[in-house]
């Protein structure tokens, strides 16, 4: 949230339709994403009730759990879901290419594409995480055995949910979050969590304003919740009798009939959201991707490749219930690295995001009024090319002299602020440039901003930060509880009685 986004919200109220807060798309949208909409039974801990899943907008598959409180039915659902999920994932494990990994890293094979799963909202991601937790410790043999695909599904769901925490990752995406990253509505962020209302503002049906569309969307009778929680009214008035009828069916035909009724009922709750998901995807696809989106997707593909390889060779990284001391610290470090990169990339890719930094004085934009592209400095040991330019900006300029700034147009060039001259409405900034101009004493064309060019400079820097080192888990120091023994990963005997 920033003043700029706040202003966009206010403009959306006035315009009656959501306003853009991004000029490019900051998430990757796959050619064939998998849309997954889960529903749970109220009151239970992540008990699946139904789901709609598929890669073809015209052919969703409906999964139904007629008695979500029954253990076997839950695992039957997991096995059923596994067929969709695992075949979708396998479909991405065919073609590889060789990619470089960071400075000094060895080139490695990487899958050309990766799976991408879309859920309606953040709660959908939580569902994936908990379903992963629920299934990954199960065993295909012994007491309480489940279908072999169940623990495998659990591993993959856990991987996706873990990866979704990474800023800028697009393997598992919540639609409301992706949309809210690009549009500001005329309602609050709390209300934006309702997918139908959010889309109502972004893309209202003909003849309706965003506000009207959002108001309609809040009526669960017209737009059922996008899950995983269902509408309590629906539960009481329609779902409960349908489940009861299924239970009480006297014979097999009656049961089949009751099942069909129940399935149709659940389809009616899921189908509107299914449609919204594809509408959301279509809206996002209309935006051109930001320049760094392919880079982040490449990181996703690499993470996917590594995990797929480890699963295939049976050496999947352990996915314990909670992170150990070393795993937690390492993961936090990686998340922070990803966050730092993501923040800079988004600002570099999108002038509207950069505008937020202009407002807070961490960036400025203006016109070049003077340029000395061939200026050479001989104050040091040897003569070096140090062009200077003067930029006139209307932006707020609290940055002190000597600050080093960078331009998204020439990210490898350092610009040092060497002179500041403020007048009433504008500031003249003189910048000395270094880097990004080759080795000779004459800059290549275009490497130094020319007079008249509109330029943006910011203190946000693209820096490569090497990954930190951590002790091995078996060397966890005494300050953090010492080496961990590893915990048993078995809970097949969990009591399910109700």
């Amino acid at each position, binding site marked *: 949230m920033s003043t700029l986004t*706040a202003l966009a919200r206010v403009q959306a109220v006035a315009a009656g339709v959501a306003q853009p807060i991004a*000029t490019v798309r900051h998430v990757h949208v796959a050619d064939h994403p998998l849309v997954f909409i889960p529903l749970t039974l109220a*009151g239970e801990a992540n008990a699946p009730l139904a789901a709609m899943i598929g890669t073809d907008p015209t052919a969703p598959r409906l999964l139904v759990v007629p008695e979500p409180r029954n253990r076997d039915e839950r695992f039957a659902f997991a096995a059923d879901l596994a067929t969709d999920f695992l075949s979708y994932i396998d479909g991405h494990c065919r073609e590889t290419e060789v990619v470089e990994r960071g400075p000094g890293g060895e080139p490695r094979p990487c899958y050309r594409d990766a799976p991408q799963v879309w859920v309606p909202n953040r709660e959908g991601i939580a569902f994936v995480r908990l379903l992963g937790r629920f299934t990954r410790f199960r065993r295909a043999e012994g007491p309480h055995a489940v279908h072999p695909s169940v623990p495998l599904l659990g591993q993959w769901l856990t991987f996706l949910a873990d990866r979704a925490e990474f800023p800028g990752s697009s393997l598992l995406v919540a639609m409301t979050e992706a949309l809210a990253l690009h549009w500001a509505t005329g309602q609050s962020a709390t209300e934006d969590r309702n997918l139908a209302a959010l889309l109502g503002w972004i893309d209202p049906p003909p003849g309706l304003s965003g506000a009207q569309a959002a108001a309609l969307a809040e009526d669960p009778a017209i737009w059922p919740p996008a899950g995983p929680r269902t509408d309590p009214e629906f539960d009481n008035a329609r779902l409960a009798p349908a489940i009861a009828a299924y239970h009480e069916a006297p014979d097999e035909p009656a049961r089949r009939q009751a099942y069909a009724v129940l399935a149709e009922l659940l389809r009616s709750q899921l189908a509107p959201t299914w449609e919204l998901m594809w509408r959301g995807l279509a*809206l996002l696809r209309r935006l051109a991707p930001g320049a760094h989106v392919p880079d982040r997707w490449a990181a996703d593909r690499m993470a996917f490749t590594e995990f797929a390889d480890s699963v295939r060779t049976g050496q999947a990284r352990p996915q314990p219930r909670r992170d150990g001391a070393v795993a937690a610290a390492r993961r936090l470090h990686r998340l922070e690295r990803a966050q730092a990169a993501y923040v800079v990339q988004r600002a570099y890719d999108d002038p*509207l995001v950069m*505008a937020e930094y202009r407002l807070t004085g961490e960036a400025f934009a203006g016109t070049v009024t003077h340029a000395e592209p061939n200026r050479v400095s001989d104050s040091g040991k040897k003569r070096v090319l140090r062009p200077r330019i003067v930029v006139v900006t209307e932006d707020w300029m609290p940055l002190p002299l000597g600050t080093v700034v960078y331009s998204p147009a020439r990210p490898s060039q350092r610009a040092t602020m060497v002179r500041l001259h403020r007048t009433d409405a504008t500031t003249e900034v003189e910048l000395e440039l270094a880097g990004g101009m080759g080795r000779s004493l004459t800059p290549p064309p275009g490497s130094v901003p020319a007079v008249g060019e509109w330029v943006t400079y910011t203190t946000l820097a693209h820096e490569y930060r090497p990954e930190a080192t951590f002790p091995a888990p078996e060397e966890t120091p005494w300050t953090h509880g010492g080496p961990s023994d590893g915990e048993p990963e078995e*809970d097949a005997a969990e009591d399910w009685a109700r």
Partner: protein
Amino acid sequence: MRERLARLRGPLPPRQPTARTIAALTRNPGCRRRAVLDSAGVDKQRLAARLGFPARVGQSRFALARSAAFAARVTADGGAELVRALRERLGLDLPEVRYVDLRAEGAVSDADATGVAGAGGERSAGAEEGYRATRATISRLLGRGERGAVLVAHPVMALEVAGQPWYVEPEALLLYAEGRFRVIALKSFAIIDGHADAAQVSAAAIESAVSVLAARHLLDDIGHDAQLVSPEVVLVCPRDFSIDPTAAVLDCRTQLATLRRHLARLARIEALLAALPPDLTFDLALTADGAPTRPPEELAAAVRAIDARYTPECLETCDIAYFCRHEAAGTTAALGRAVQEHLGGVETVAAVLGLADGSLLPPEEQKEVAELLRTAHRVRAEALAAAGVFGEERPR
């Protein structure tokens, strides 16, 4: 004051606050409308319905059933499962635990069909008897210096809210052991791998603080040290995906301080009431069979007589929030606290836009925010123009 509040409420019996509604008072303590309506015990659900902005408060029967099933499982066989969880999870040394169900003993009427105490809203007829029974039981425990541990199920306690005593029937038990009391809160959300939803735990903590405070009042009332009630509450929830209970200790000291603070403010509500029109009432003018006849417009005018402090979070916690939201249309407050803060507190959408495009001359105290808004307007337009996207238009 009591009379005044009764006049505001009309002839309906006061809506009995539950631990949950008392806890909800801390959600938006700056809202005068809510403070007055709650203090007067106005049935906000019916009020909102009559105003044409019904609350969305329905509870799924699956959730209620699960909650009841969990409570039943935990308290079955003299709380055997509960005692096991307390021993295992908390290392409590409980050699033998006597289970006293105040409701089973006939002292408390079974007011609640769900089987979970306190989920209802109407003042239960048996509350007063329940309170007496709870008092008597606790007096007895302390009086005879009971050595063993005792679990008291379905306790009824009391708390003073806005100068009036209210009965509290929490979804909780009292554990008496080693001369001290602990509140045992039963909740049906899951603790999975030691982790539970932070919003639900937060709600449980503040509701439990209501119980602790009420229990302390009760001890005080019967001449015992109120500090015998521990501020550490035991939260009992289903473990992982099962229905087996597990327990965690919740340190509610922060919530206790918060609650005390807000109750103390409500006790001073008199000043607020004094500023209201003397004939103000939220009487729905019910017919004999309970149908409201008060014209909604008149009722709306009465509600508007008290300032609200609407925030979008109210939608989740207050029964008349949809009315307040409607009233707040066109204000920056309706867009959320953070939005309003970033707009420097400018109150309306129209003023923000006017200041931003320069069509509105700012009063002295808004010169600064006007400058920021104009800059924001300019950089936004520049960025959109540079990208070939134009503001205030359909994205398609």
